[in-house]
């Protein structure tokens, strides 16, 4: 078997060269690099993080591990390898890119993870009211999470801390299943997976309904492509004849398997519809795309999924949909909501935003080159083209605020990466035999590919953990949030400086939670913001005013995102302390809790 050519991504001649000793070394190197990266990330002091996020704070050994892991990956390409090697390499990359979130800080990264724990906790305690918020209208994920936490007996914060790593691993399974339906070529599966894991700085892999939704989306696509797929027999060339010539036949002859797979897809679709509002819509349109290119043997599937969606919106989610339309796009414009409004803030934050855009553009550019190469080489399998493009068609259609571009990028990323692998494949090492013995490949090609992937990896770490200064929480901040819940009366309004607050993991429905970031959106000036807060305190007079939490992370978030400078924040807090009726309830090194009494709004104008 040693001279059997591997199926080609490119015209480069490569040989299937089994080298068990080399494989063992490569696998060990990959896992070692992953472990070293986690150990290195765990040593970072969260209080030492700057505006550039985690990357500048990482020790040189982390970057050595990045290069070592990518070198191991490159040496696994272009030849036959042991069956365990690719999973070992992917495990190394998962550790390197996704585990730092699990070992940094005093709890899960991202405030929304804490909130999701709170929703599950509320539901486990019998709170199940669709009037509370959107989570109670698409609740499918949370009872499952409550079951997992209660049944396993694991600490909820630990579950949330390790969720990104587990989700990324599960997504990897889904992606290889999808890609396997598109190609039998090992390298055409593992290179896109590698690029996906690097390009996915988008932060949807935390403990969330959309993370589970994305997994189900991938598996439904894998089943439709792999089991419920169709091909056209007797077709004719040319676009005009595409939909008329030939007849559609199933790719799998086994009718029993197709019927059962269809049933399974329907079960997964029902779960998906109950879990997340956006994902089933993207899935339905992706399935329509596959039907239009005549590659699905289940043309009614998107119709059924659409009906399920409508039924869910009409009944379980009807409360939320009043005033929250799903369709309609963003009034402020897609580009403004998704890009312009996000690329603002401090210098370090702008550099991180630049890296995020550059990384995304780099993967898209490689994908575009791959599309051209693929088309020119005569590849007319339209499925990956459709699945890469359809999510972007949702951009102006769905009303999902400034996150829509991030979401559609994630949905298309596996297929963009599929095409992006094609130009990169020409950099794979060329394994040859000399005098009947395996010879080393040329070092130039190996080093160039390693360097390129390492640069992309460095960009990924920079982009993914670029907000670490405010989305990773310290023990003092967590302690202050605990005190906040102890000090504030039940049913009262809690206000935090910014959305980056590790709260709501308990007593989810017991309080109303607001943020200075949202309340003062119209004018972040200290005086105007104080006035806004006291208007709220007056409004909440019946509850004795409001309780306000200001943390280190809150201040960093407001400053880094260009909303309140350090001076403005200091002025705002000094003004707060000077107001009659304001009392400091708690303070530690990184957080303060104030009580703002009502009837003090008239005093605000006299504050500095």
């Amino acid at each position, binding site marked *: 078997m040693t001279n059997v050519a591997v199926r080609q991504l490119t015209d480069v001649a490569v040989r299937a060269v089994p080298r068990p000793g080399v494989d063992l070394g490569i696998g060990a190197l990959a896992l070692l690099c992953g472990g070293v990266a986690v150990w290195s990330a765990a040593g970072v002091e969260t209080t030492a993080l700057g505006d550039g996020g985690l990357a500048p704070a990482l020790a040189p050994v982390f970057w050595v591990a990045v290069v070592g892991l990518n070198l191991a990956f490159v040496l696994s390409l272009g030849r036959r390898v042991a069956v365990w090697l690719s999973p070992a390499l992917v495990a190394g990359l998962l550790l390197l890119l996704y585990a730092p979130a699990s070992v940094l800080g005093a709890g899960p990264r991202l405030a929304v993870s804490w909130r999701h724990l709170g929703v599950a906790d509320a*539901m*486990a305690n019998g709170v*199940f009211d669709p009037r509370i918020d959107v989570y109670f209208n698409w*609740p*499918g*994920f949370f*009872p*499952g999470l*409550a*079951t*997992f936490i*209660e*049944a*396993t*007996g*694991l600490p909820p914060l630990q579950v949330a801390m390790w969720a990104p790593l587990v989700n990324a691993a*599960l997504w990897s*399974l*889904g992606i*290889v*299943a999808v890609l*396997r*339906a598109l190609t039998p070529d090992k390298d055409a599966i593992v290179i896109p997976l590698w690029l996906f894991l690097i390009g996915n700085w988008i932060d949807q892999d935390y403990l969330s309904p959309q993370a*589970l939704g994305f*997994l*189900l989306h*991938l*598996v439904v696509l*894998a*089943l439709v492509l*792999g*089991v419920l797929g169709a091909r056209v027999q007797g077709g004719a060339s040319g676009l005009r004849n595409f939909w008329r010539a030939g007849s559609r036949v199933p790719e799998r002859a086994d009718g029993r*398997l197709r019927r*059962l*797979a269809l049933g*399974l897809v329907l*079960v*997964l679709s*029902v*779960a*998906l519809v*109950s*879990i997340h509002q956006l994902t089933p819509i993207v899935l339905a349109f992706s399935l329509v795309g596959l039907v239009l290119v005549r590659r699905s043997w289940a043309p009614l599937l998107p119709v059924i999924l659409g009906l399920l969606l409508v039924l869910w919106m009409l009944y*379980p989610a009807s409360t939320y949909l009043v005033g929250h339309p799903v369709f309609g796009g963003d009034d402020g414009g897609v580009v403004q909501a998704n890009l312009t409004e996000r690329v603002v803030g401090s210098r370090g934050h702008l550099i991180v935003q630049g890296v995020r855009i550059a990384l995304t553009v780099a993967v898209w550019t490689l994908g575009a080159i791959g599309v051209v190469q693929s088309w020119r080489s005569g590849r007319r399998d339209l499925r990956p083209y459709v699945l890469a493009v359809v999510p972007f068609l949702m951009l102006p259609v769905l009303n999902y605020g400034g996150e829509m571009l991030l979401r559609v990028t994630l949905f298309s990323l596996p297929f963009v990466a599929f095409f992006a692998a094609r130009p990169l494949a020409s950099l794979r090492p060329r394994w040859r035999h000399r005098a009947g013995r395996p010879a080393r490949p040329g070092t130039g090609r190996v080093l160039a590919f390693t360097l390129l992937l390492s640069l992309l990896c460095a960009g990924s770490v920079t982009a993914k953990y670029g907000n670490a200064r405010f989305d990773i929480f310290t023990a003092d901040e967590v302690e202050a949030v605990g005190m906040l819940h102890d000090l504030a009366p039940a049913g009262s309004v809690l206000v935090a400086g910014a959305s980056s607050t590790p709260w709501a993991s308990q007593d989810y429905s017991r309080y109303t939670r607001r943020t200075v970031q949202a309340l003062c959106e119209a004018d972040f000036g200290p005086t105007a913001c104080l006035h806004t807060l006291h208007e709220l305190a007056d409004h909440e007079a019946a509850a004795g005013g409001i309780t306000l939490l200001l943390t280190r992370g809150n201040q960093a978030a407001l400053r880094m995102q260009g909303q309140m400078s350090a001076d403005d924040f200091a002025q705002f807090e000094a003004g707060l302390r000077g107001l009659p009726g304001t009392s400091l309830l708690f303070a530690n090194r990184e957080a303060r809790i104030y009580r703002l009494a009502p009837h003090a709004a008239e005093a605000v104008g006299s504050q500095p």
Partner: protein
Amino acid sequence: MSSESRPGTTRPARLGQMERLSAGLVALGVLMPLLAVTQPVQPVRALAAATVLMCLPGLAVARFLRLREPLLFLAVVPSVSLALTALAATGLMYAGVWSWQLTLGSLGAVTVAVAAITGLGDPPP
């Protein structure tokens, strides 16, 4: 290891003919939820519960479908398990009778039912 069921055989005889993997899944579908409900020490409790929530129902379903493609099989097992966990828990929540014990029990029942159907059915050609 599978053996073909013959018409006219009695139920105990048919159960005796159940192929080993399906019989194993039936046993795990009964034992694992029971083990988790008794709340043994960690990590036994976490492993038992996670096996039921993330593995067993999907494994039973993937075997029932006779998925030949290993990568698809590997992806289907956890995703179907998690989807069934979400569906079972949400259904019980809407019915107002949710408890983690009941959810585990229903997932164990799904595993047992699907594995038994697979084991007692005709073997794959």
